[in-house]
């Protein structure tokens, strides 16, 4: 069964460093998403991406964050200058379409630890 994959599973970085989190969505999906979950808190929406541009973003997704689909398979989240409060689990998701009933399939997550 097709699934969303994410690498790495755990990333440790120093405050101020740039990190890139990688995701491979399900191959025929057209919509891509990033969510994050700070330990003990809710899963929060960051951004959605369609047709090579951001279609929706939350107030969390500020200028420190960017997303890209560099090739036909990968979808990346870049954090330019990490802060301690960026430590969280980051989940990638994809869906076949953008309509409400289209199920979002989630990856296993990348745990980001900022020291």
């Amino acid at each position, binding site marked *: 069964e097709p*699934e969303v994959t994410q690498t790495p599973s755990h990333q440790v970085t120093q405050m101020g460093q740039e990190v890139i989190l990688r995701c491979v969505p399900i191959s025929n999906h057209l*919509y891509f*998403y990033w*969510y994050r979950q700070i330990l003990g*808190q*809710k*899963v*929060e*929406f960051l951004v*959605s991406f369609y047709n090579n541009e951001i*279609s*929706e973003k*939350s107030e969390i997704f500020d200028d420190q964050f960017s997303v890209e689909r560099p090739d036909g398979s990968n979808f990346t989240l870049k954090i330019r200058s990490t802060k301690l409060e960026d430590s969280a*689990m980051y*989940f990638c998701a994809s*869906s076949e379409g*953008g309509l*409400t*009933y289209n*199920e*979002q*399939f*989630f*990856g*296993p*997550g990348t745990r980001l630890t900022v020291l």
Partner: protein
Amino acid sequence: AQTVTQSQPEMSVQEAETVTLSCTYDTSESDYYLFWYKQPPSRQMILVIRQEAYKQQNATENRFSVNFQKAAKSFSLKISDSQLGDAAMYFCAYRSGSGAQKLVFGQGTRLTINP
């Protein structure tokens, strides 16, 4: 803005028994979808069940069913004949029918199955 609240941080149930997880939400919209996601220790979120707000009939998926009370803005999940594999975090989520793509999650309920 829409909010989702899960008031039970933890629940436990004996194997083979029935358990109900609570979820309430707040919205001014009339068209929306509600979801229950399961997040096992492997951390990959899996869709358990979804409910369209325009449907009066409660959704069911095998041992999983919901009690959708639109007027009360309540959306509880009932798990019948609980199995050890049901142990996980369960998240209630809301998605607007207006075209917004983000899922709004509750805080989660950790379900423990006692053998």
